[in-house]
């Protein structure tokens, strides 16, 4: 399809690719109650002997991010947030508010979409924080948008996670921290490919909230949470994703090129996403 009505210039085209980069990254899910916010993420390792790519970065005692897309870009952005959080602490002796953090990132990203030279950030972020107005979750995109959600999922096959969130989000408001983490892991599990399951090695969990500093669970610390799930494998496999039969033995890392069929699968999901949207918008 070639529209004569819409067009743009080259500096914007790059944003398109940036948004694609998010879909190439492994999935992350975020959710909130009034008092707590949780991030769960699926980690990949480039090769059997390599380490898993870090997905969750602590910014401050009360603030952290999860990334999908180019990890180096996320590091640049998280360093920027750390600077801002420190500055707020130093100059005003108060924590950086979660909303302010997300807006700072969005405004920083917008610059790269309007001018030539440089490129947009190739990473999507979920930002969680707990501050004097409670727990918050924001989704940041390289297009320069940053919106507050009750639950959000980004990255490869994230639509399945989003579907889970849309089905259950009304329960979150009064959920405990533990229940919220289980919801998060359930959503993350729904994004898994057929032959994958959540393990203590490929799962990261972070929580922040009332009387809870930003805490990151990796490796052995994750097992306690996985034990709470009824299943660590994708239990709706075959139903929605019957054609989703990729059996790649090694997943690519966040920066690498995603396998063709993986990309195709996520592209299909985007189609699903839009349909879903139409339904939910009514």
């Amino acid at each position, binding site marked *: 399809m070639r529209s004569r009505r819409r*067009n*743009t210039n080259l500096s914007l085209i790059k*944003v398109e690719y940036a948004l694609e980069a998010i879909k190439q990254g492994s999935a992350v899910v975020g959710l909130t109650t009034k008092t707590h916010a949780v991030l769960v993420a699926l980690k990949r390792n480039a090769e059997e002997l390599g380490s898993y790519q870090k997905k969750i970065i602590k910014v401050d005692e009360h603030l952290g991010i999860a990334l999908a897309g180019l990890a180096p870009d996320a590091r640049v952005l998280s360093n920027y947030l750390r600077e801002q959080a420190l500055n707020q602490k130093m100059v005003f002796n108060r924590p950086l508010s979660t909303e302010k953090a997300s807006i700072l990132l969005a405004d920083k990203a917008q610059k790269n979409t*309007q001018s030539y030279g440089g490129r947009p950030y190739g990473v999507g972020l979920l930002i969680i924080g707990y501050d004097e107005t409670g727990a918050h979750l924001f989704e940041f995109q390289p297009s320069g948008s940053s919106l507050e959600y009750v*639950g959000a999922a980004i990255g490869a096959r994230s639509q399945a996670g989003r579907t889970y969130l849309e089905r259950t989000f009304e329960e979150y408001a009064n959920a405990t921290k533990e229940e919220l983490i289980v919801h998060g892991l359930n959503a993350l599990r729904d994004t898994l490919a057929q032959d994958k399951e959540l393990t203590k090695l490929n799962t990261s969990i972070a929580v922040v909230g009332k009387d809870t500093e930003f805490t990151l669970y990796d490796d052995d610390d994750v097992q306690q949470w996985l034990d709470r799930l009824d299943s660590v494998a994708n239990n709706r496999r075959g139903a929605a994703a019957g054609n989703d039969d990729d059996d790649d033995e090694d997943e690519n890392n966040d920066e690498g090129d995603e396998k063709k069929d993986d990309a195709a699968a996520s592209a299909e999901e985007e189609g699903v996403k839009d349909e879903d949207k139409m339904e939910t918008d*009514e």
Partner: protein
Amino acid sequence: MVRVNKPYHVSLAEFLLQMLQVLGVGVHDDGERGRTSVGTGYDLSNSVFSPDGRNFQVEYAAKAVENGSTSLAIKTPTGVVFAVEKIITSKLLVPNKNNRIQTIGRSIGAVYSGLLPDGRHLVSRARDEFNSYRGQYKEDITVPYLIDRLGNYVQAYTCYNSVRPFGITSIIGGVDGEGSHLYMLEPSGVYWGYKGAAAGKGRQSAKNELEKLKYDELTSKDAIKEAARIIYLAHEDNKDKDFEIEISWVDTVETKGLHQFVPEDLLAEAKAYAQDKLNEDEDEDEEDDEDEDMDN
């Protein structure tokens, strides 16, 4: 030299479509329009005029705005009221957050339709202008002077290859020593003063309604109700989507010259009024269209 890059060109349209979706802007196709120079490369770059003297980049930017959610503002003798229709793109979004109306200084408000991040950029520039004026003259910038500075800024983004134009039409107004002011600023950098201004998808029906208001007699409190009513009405063009409404005001008396969101009770009152009026109109039409329940 004109740069033509066909492969890019094909993906451009898809891209902007995607951008608009990402930004929560509704997109619909309003048909093709014949245009001689489109696709010849004259439209790919800023700072290139087509043989018939048009800068397509700017026109495309204006198109992006036309599909954005509706925003409007009403000027009264003592103040300005801003309102915007916020389409709810996901039920996971936190209700009544993600504000769209912003403040410049203390007494100036801004709302925009189109690419929302560009709007934030413009407002951030406006705030810088406000600050630098204050730094130099130790008093607040007047609205007409601010809008002139912003007009020049936006215009500069139509002139160079290295940038793209702003994908927003912004409505900026407020009160200063000279009274109340309202302007609308387009992607080309052109701006006009208004009594009532509207941008975005529902602008046409909104303008029809705005033209009926009696601006000399309007109080800011009434303007809030009218703004709500017009947003609800304009939303009829976009009926299948849920929305929230955001209203702010600045008034020399009611808000002591400060731009702020309207209090809960006034907002509720305005929504109820809008709903009533809408139902009234529907009854008058005596058509058996199914009533759309739009309380939110």
